[in-house]
């Protein structure tokens, strides 16, 4: 028994462990001060009534949550956050897969094509969103002009002006910036699949589509899961695109949890409501992140 306590102490406090704690101390303190404490604080705030200066006035327990959960708008925003993510991730996934397949074909100029496909991801998202605002401009924007001139759409909508089209326009910009990530990940995965597999499948009489499903997709299985989870987290977290294009409007039609947290606090000064929504966002995000982390750890050895 004495031996066990001794070895536990040795395990916690030996020269090597001490050095590790010293090396990590700055980062840990930094994270405690600016990340863990703020999470605790936002949770505490969600249990209080606040004034316009965001000071805590009276303790109300979970009453703020009850108020939020009874509010139809809160549910609309939360559900919108979820289908924003679902739509965003699926389109990014499919287009990313298509582009990866195209880039996996051997031809001259493939490297250039790859470089060009990366641009939307490499570019700064806030600045791209500003450019899209100009692209979507109803009168002088070149998108509607091009749609009309080519005869694709005779009467294009005022993109950011109506509920459905504004949502479509916003989610498209988020998708647009997120496609290259999937394309690059899938391409890297495809190039790691041995060519012989395709050759022997070909000899066995498998067609292109069969070998795509049984070799390519099977080979990409883990990558597909990891990149989809990552993309889901990023898409759910998106704030910049919506805030810059519509600030959640018109009439809340593009408001998702992230923009709603910000607007509830900084615009409408309802800090307690913002805190509740931040906690809800935190819970949803933590669940997905936990799945991601677990999966990541399963395949990496330490």
């Amino acid at each position, binding site marked *: 028994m004495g031996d066990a306590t001794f070895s536990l102490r040795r395990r*916690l406090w030996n020269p*090597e*462990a001490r050095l*590790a704690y010293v*090396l990590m101390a*700055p*980062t*840990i303190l*930094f994270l405690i001060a*600016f990340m863990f*404490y*703020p*999470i605790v604080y*936002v949770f505490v705030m969600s249990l209080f009534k606040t004034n316009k200066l*965001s000071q805590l006035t009276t303790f109300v327990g979970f009453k703020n949550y009850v108020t939020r959960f009874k509010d139809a708008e809160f549910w609309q925003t939360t559900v919108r956050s979820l289908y924003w993510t679902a739509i965003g991730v699926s389109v990014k996934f499919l*287009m990313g897969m298509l582009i990866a397949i195209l880039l996996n074909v051997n*031809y001259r100029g493939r490297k250039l*094509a790859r470089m*060009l496909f*990366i*641009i939307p991801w*490499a*570019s*700064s*998202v*806030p600045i*791209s969103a*500003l*450019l899209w605002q*100009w692209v979507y401009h109803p*009168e*002088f*924007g*070149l998108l509607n*002009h091009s749609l009309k001139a080519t005869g694709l759409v005779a009467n294009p909508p005022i993109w950011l002006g109506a509920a459905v089209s504004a949502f479509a326009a916003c989610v498209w910009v988020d998708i647009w910036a997120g*496609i290259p990530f999937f394309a690059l990940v899938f391409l*890297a*995965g495809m190039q*790691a699949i041995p060519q012989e597999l395709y050759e022997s499948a*070909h000899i066995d009489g498998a067609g292109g589509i069969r070998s795509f499903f049984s070799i390519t997709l099977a080979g990409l299985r883990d*990558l597909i899961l*990891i*990149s989809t989870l990552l993309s889901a*987290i990023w898409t759910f977290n998106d704030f*910049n695109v919506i805030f810059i294009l519509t600030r959640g409007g018109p009439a809340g039609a593009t408001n998702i*949890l992230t923009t709603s*947290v910000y607007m509830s606090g*900084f615009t409408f000064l309802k800090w307690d409501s*913002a805190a509740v929504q*931040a906690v809800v*966002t*935190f819970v949803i*995000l*933590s669940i997905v*992140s936990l799945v*991601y*982390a677990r999966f990541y*750890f399963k*395949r990496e050895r*330490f």
Partner: protein
Amino acid sequence: MKWQNRSKYIAIPLTILILLFLLFPFFVMISTMLKAGEDVYATPPIWIPRHIEWSNFVTVWTQYDLASYFLASIVIAVGATALNTILCVPAAYAVARLNFVGRKFALYLLLMIEMFSPVIVIISLFKIVTRVGLYDTFASLIIMDALFTVAFNTWMMNGYFKTIPKDIEEAALIDGCTRVQTITKVMLPIAVPGLVTVMIYSFIFAWNEFLFGLSFISSKNKMPLTIALYNFVGRWMTQWQYLCMAALLAIIPVLVLFYLIEKRLVAGLAGGAVKG
């Protein structure tokens, strides 16, 4: 193979078509940035300027203080990169090489924090920043930008340190190096590609950051580019030709930097399932 040869006749046109579609906003940017005012607001809109207004390039620097915003962005991004590197390198060495209780938990936590959204804590951070007198300072943005990249970068550096064979380090220890010396003199020089990757990553993150700049900065001379360009839109009638010119100039540095690290970034994010 035969089908490979044939498939390029489908792949190339399709690639060009999708590229035209995806790069549309950049074509618009290039078309607009050299237009004169009356061409920007022509009805119907036109793609090719009737005359090229080269002076737009000068105007963004002289009339719109672009240099001041660039300087602010550079100060913030360099500061955030420096702070981030100082924090993440020692921490990464610890989790990669040293044995201590809670090592696995630390790695787990890093991966979770990497996914964290600034929006969740923006309210708390706003209160902290104002209370400690950091509101409207570069320091506030430097701290926040370093904060939100430190987990990912520690994680990435940990990966690079782990690829270095232990023998090299042990040889240095036997030769009389201290642990700290093995980090600075043996490990870091080998891990330079990794170090460059994480430094560029924090630089890009800080350069593109929007939410903290929006919430913590009010003076014009401290505004980073993203916030300055955002504020530029919507006041009276936006002069889109200048905005497009400024947007191109603001994007170029991060485009170049991104190309240097994209392969390593993808490998790091996908978790060793692909090799960079």
